[in-house]
């Protein structure tokens, strides 16, 4: 479903250039659960933005469901984000002035879904994350775990093919983090492709495959079975038992 071919992303900083992503080749199959790990500054956030069509490769090709994202217009990429990709962020990014239900309705607003249908679908999405009783609450009246579950409901309400989670548990206590991971993994088991960016080994453990980034590049080829660590039973939910964390070549710091 996702194919990166020799992707570079270069930023101009002052007079010099910084390669945030260098020569990455990666393939992700439909329904996979991939953890993207690496220390701060390793390029995993840039990767996530490229995967989410928020950013475009400077060089190389990114094929999403067979379409070359680099060749799409801004309008077409926004349609892709709207219908095929859901985002979950570390800081939830809920609009504070809107109720939980209204936050979930947002993507449908831009898609022009009529109000009644929007209400019904938002209610269903909130039900799926177990927040029906909190639908009318504003984000500041919700706990961190609840906020992230609202964000998940919003991410999947358009029924996307890919869910991109950027440190989804980075701001949550351990209990809420488990709840959130259980939730998105359950969606993954029903066929949603899941890519989680994290530097928490315990979260990475749970993925079917771990892709390790350092200095903008992927350690190993990034193709299944070629260098990236595979957790064969991940998709069956059997990898929830902790494994010893993979050694990280760099000191860790915040995401």
């Amino acid at each position, binding site marked *: 479903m996702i194919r990166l071919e020799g992707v570079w992303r270069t930023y101009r900083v002052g007079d010099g250039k910084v390669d945030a992503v260098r020569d990455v080749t990666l393939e992700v199959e439909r329904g996979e659960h991939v953890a993207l790990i690496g220390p701060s500054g390793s390029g995993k*956030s*840039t990767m996530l*933005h490229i995967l*989410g069509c*928020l*950013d475009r490769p400077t060089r190389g090709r990114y094929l999403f469901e067979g379409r070359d994202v680099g060749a799409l217009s*801004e*309008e077409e990429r*926004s*349609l*892709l*984000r*709207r*219908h095929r*990709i859901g*985002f979950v*962020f570390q*800081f939830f*990014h809920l*609009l*504070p*002035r*809107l109720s939980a239900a209204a936050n979930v309705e*947002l*993507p449908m*607003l*831009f*898609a*022009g879904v*009529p*109000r009644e249908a929007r209400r019904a679908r938002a209610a269903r999405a909130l039900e799926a994350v177990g927040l029906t009783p909190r639908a009318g609450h504003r984000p500041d009246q919700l706990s961190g775990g609840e906020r992230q579950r609202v964000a998940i409901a*919003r991410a999947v309400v*358009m029924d996307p093919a890919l869910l991109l989670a950027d440190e989804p548990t980075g701001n949550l206590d351990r209990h809420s983090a488990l709840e959130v991971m259980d939730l998105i993994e359950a969606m993954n088991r029903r066929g949603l492709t899941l890519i989680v960016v994290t530097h928490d080994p315990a979260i990475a453990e749970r993925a079917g495959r771990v892709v390790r980034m350092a200095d903008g590049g992927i350690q190993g080829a990034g193709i299944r079975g070629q260098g990236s660590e595979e957790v064969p039973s991940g998709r069956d939910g059997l990898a929830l038992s902790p494994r010893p964390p993979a050694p990280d070549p760099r000191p860790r710091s915040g995401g």
Partner: protein
Amino acid sequence: MRFLDLVAFAAGALRGHRLRTALSVGGVAVGIAAVVALTALGEGARRYVVEEFAALGSNLLIVLPGKVETTGAAPFGGVTHDLTIADLRAIARLPRVRKAAPMAVATDTVRYRDRGRDVPVLGTTAEFIDVRHMEVASGEFLPAGDPDQGGTEMVLGQKAAFELFRDESPLGRVVRVGPYRFRVVGVLAPRGRSLGFDLDDVVFVPVRTAMRAFNRTSLFRILIEVRVHDEMDAAKRDVLALLDARHRVEDVTVFTQDALLSAFGSILRALTLALVGIASVSLAVAGVGIMNVMLVSVTERRAEIGLLKALGAADRQVLAAFLAEAVLLALGGGIVGLGAGAGAVRLFVEFYPSFPASPPVWAVVAALGLSVAVGVAFGVWPARRATRLDPVVALARR
């Protein structure tokens, strides 16, 4: 994105900053209120003048001796013939003319016993009261008859009558103008100023007598009432042709009430527009205020903009959302300003009831249109900045 959803979304964002929203709305409201109030006053002034003239009768043609345009061919050759009572008779016989009345004017001292008053003395005929749509308060107007006849009757304007006679009844009294004696036969109902005369402070005498007394050979004006309003232009041509033939040269000017009216009307409208132009400056200031607020808002809501893009909002939808906010601010200001302006005008009319000031419909429509235009004009740039925001950068901050 549906239009109502867009409006609701923008309104929701504005509700998040009540004070800021209220201040921006207030800024626009001041500008719009100024525009509305000033147009109402300007239009009121115009209508006041127009109504004054319309009271004269809109079928009125006015003939005066001499040509207004100076055509340069023969500087010494232009002979201006007198406008005579014979001309008046001829005009009165024209088929399109209902009535014609002469005016011969001089200012002189009218005396009753030991009281004297300098007033314009108007020499005219019985037709005058009909042509000018005036009414007699007591007694009667000048008697009908041959205009060449002359006579000793006099009719007083309301004010002239009061000044000369105070509480006495003037009817039947004898007044003197120079060596001439006149008998008061009537007093007119109050009429107010018109065409430069205070018609309450004049006296009327038969035209022939006036011309003799003041040694005039020419009439000052001939006032003509045309039968059908639609035939004003035709009647004007008739009168000109007739006088051409009689004088063998075009040496009179005929103008219509409408021409006067539209001249005054357009002058006053220009004044109104000038006032509105000045008021619009405050609208521009309010627009800059909106732009400022929107720029702050865009900067503050970087994360929101990034999120909206991540959720699949196209650039033009982000643009529309922020533009809608600016337009809502301006339109809100427009509506508040409209109310405030109309209220101010109403208050003004409370104090000056005779002044017909009320905001004209076009001004109301223009005020709302103007406020929307201000919102768009000053909202586009901030909205474009929101659109250009890189979602990656926008989301990176929190």
